[in-house]
């Protein structure tokens, strides 16, 4: 091949590959644009005031297509599938209690995306921004609204290469004292102090301002841990518990459990754990759930499952009876207000 043919080949190839690349970006861009147009048959949404105080409302991340996609919306608790009121606050993950909200959000930068945990007041105004090191996955606020916790996925800080790890932070919103990583707490595993480079924590659920439950993973095993904020300790309680969520009366946890023999792509089922008897009860949801459930009252939990446009919100009784029912489409991370 002469220099000339090589050069021509290269130019032609650059033109063809460049066209393919350009077309794929344009197609994706067009598709992203489509999501800004409301789908027929979707829930009616209008702009308005969303409050984290008041009563009888439920606030969540709206995933329905249209101008309010990814905004926080509010609906009446007794009509969660009904008309949505949207506020221009966009969160990847959200939770609120007693007038305090946590919004885990993304900011696009020139080099990479950056993430923040924003603590919101009852009118969704940002009180404090904390930079976070990875992709948000879970967040909770203590029942009093004083303490907040969040978990993010961090890529590539494992010794084995392309592994992921999690990082869980806790902040006291009264003093803004931040624990950047629960890894600084002392771990007491089966009665003995425990150290490991591979510990990961996720899914904090608060009992009160000083105590919480969470998941600890190490050496391929997950544990339910009980955390003490003042003593800075985490004590293991039992194995195979992920993303616990404590009932409003503090007596039961609903969590996702890896069940043996399940499809590796669908490994989890929801279980309830009675903290007094330590008895487990499978809930009546037969599908795999990868979420930290939210209690809508003393008897029912809600969780997300993939739907046509983002996640749909489902509910199931917390005692193993009844059956799962869809509560709202294109809705994520509900928080019950009042």
């Amino acid at each position: 091949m002469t220099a000339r043919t090589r050069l021509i080949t290269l130019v032609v190839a650059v033109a063809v590959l460049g066209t393919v690349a350009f077309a794929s970006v344009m197609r994706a861009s067009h598709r992203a644009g489509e999501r800004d147009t409301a789908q027929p048959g979707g829930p009616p949404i209008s702009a308005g005031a969303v409050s984290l105080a008041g009563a009888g409302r439920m606030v969540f991340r709206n995933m329905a297509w249209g101008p309010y996609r990814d905004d926080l919306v509010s609906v009446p608790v007794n009509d969660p599938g009904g008309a949505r009121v949207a506020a221009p606050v966009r969160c990847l993950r959200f939770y609120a209690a007693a007038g305090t909200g946590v919004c885990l959000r993304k900011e696009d930068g020139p080099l990479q995306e950056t993430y923040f945990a924003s603590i919101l007041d009852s009118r969704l105004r940002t009180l404090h921004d904390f930079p976070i090191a990875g992709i948000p996955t879970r967040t909770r606020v203590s029942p009093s609204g004083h303490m907040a916790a969040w978990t993010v996925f961090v890529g590539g800080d494992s010794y084995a290469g392309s592994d992921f790890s999690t990082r869980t932070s806790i902040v006291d919103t009264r003093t803004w004292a931040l624990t950047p990583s629960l890894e600084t707490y002392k771990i007491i595993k089966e009665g003995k102090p425990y150290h490991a480079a591979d510990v990961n924590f996720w899914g904090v659920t608060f009992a009160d301002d000083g105590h919480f439950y969470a998941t600890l993973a190490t050496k391929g095993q997950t544990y339910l841990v009980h955390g003490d904020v003042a003593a800075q300790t985490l004590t293991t309680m039992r194995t195979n518990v992920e993303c616990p969520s404590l009932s409003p009366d503090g007596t039961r946890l609903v969590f996702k459990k890896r069940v043996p023999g399940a499809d590796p792509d669908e490994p989890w089922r929801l279980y309830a754990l009675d903290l007094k008897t330590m008895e487990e009860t499978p809930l009546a949801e037969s599908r795999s759930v990868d979420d930290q459930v939210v209690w809508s009252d003393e008897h029912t939990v809600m969780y997300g499952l993939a739907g046509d446009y983002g996640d749909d919100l489902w509910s199931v009784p917390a005692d193993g009876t009844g059956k799962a029912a869809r509560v709202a489409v294109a809705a994520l991370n509900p928080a019950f207000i009042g």
Partner: protein
Amino acid sequence: MYLADRGPTAATAPTDADQGRTDRAAQPGRALRAIPATVLALGTVSLITDVSSEMVTAVLPLYVVAGLGLSPLGFGVLDGVYNGVSGLVRLFGGHLADRGRRHKAVAVAGYGLSALCKPLLLFVHTLPLISGVLALDRTGKGIRTAPRDAMISLASTPENRGRAFGVHRAMDTGGALLGPIVAFLVLGMAADGYDAVFTVSFCIAALGVLVLVLFVPGGRAPAVTAGPAGADAAPAGDGAAAASPPVTLRSALALLRIPDVRRLTVTATLLGLTTVSDAFVYLMVQHRLGISERLFPLLPLGTAFFFLVLAMPLGVLADRVGRRRVFLGGHVALLLAYGLLLMPLHNDALPFVVLALHGTFYAATDGVLPAAAAGAVPAELRASGLALIGTGQALARFCCSIAFGAAWTVIGDQAVLGIAMAGLAVCAGWAAYALRGPETA
């Protein structure tokens, strides 16, 4: 690039001695004068390929968590197993390349396999399958590494080999730094456009393969006969492969009978055993020097920046003062970095100094080791020999990671880093002794 275009006769004779000189007259710029066109072409291929692969690496966590909505914990379970396999793949690629004297063909297969993995990502949506595609991608990387380094060494003159590898590594790292920028540009134009990122990544990878096919001379290298041409004369020692007998697995293993090859393999492996993996270095920087959460993802960029800037100057230095000396010097830089991490100092500049030393370590070792090794391995077994030394080093580093992780559990980060530092000091001392004396060019 067209400067690489040469008559078919010349192109099929990529031996150490002549090519650099033939190309030299045509090179633009003083700094690049002694860089053979083949090396620049291979550097361009690596740069393009690294843009492509780092695009995917940069968005993959986001894609898995936000795009697919999966919980990626335990994603890297197969990683450990795969690190072992990729070492063997590298040996296989090196042997295959030497066997038919077809370095270019094997490199094309390796780059091609990795390129084909990018569109596969459009069709797999579960963690096991994504891991599988990534494993295949890395198989391609394993296959191509040894023949590519062999081509770099064969295309450069012995006295400029350090510079050639330095330029190649700088271009490679430059691509790795550009990749995430391109990926996030695409995501900026098309929100959630992960499919567009993978498609663009494939187009870029395909361009890389094309540049390799078009602009890197290939064909069958003629059997090299012993002569006064330089490094490819039989190296001092028993010269097992000097008369270019057919390349067999046995002749590849017999390389270890050449004292210089043995010494370099053992040294690189021993030093690898005490080289703490990047991930742990960044964790230590964060834990011990108090880097904010937000800066944590930027730490690898710091190392890459210093690697990029220093790769060529240190390659040139290696050509002047000796590659083994610079290779050892790189480990001294690493030793200093460990030392700074262990000292109870608190200074805002400290993280930068540690990253600078870490980048210096890479710049002084990553390209300098194959440059040093090339002098000891006969040309007809070049890819096998480079694979042998590189694999020894890579497997040793992996063993170190496992041991480091386990020891961290038992005795804590400070103690385990102290032990690694002591081990590195001992190994570096031994290496300085073992590698003393004149080196084969």
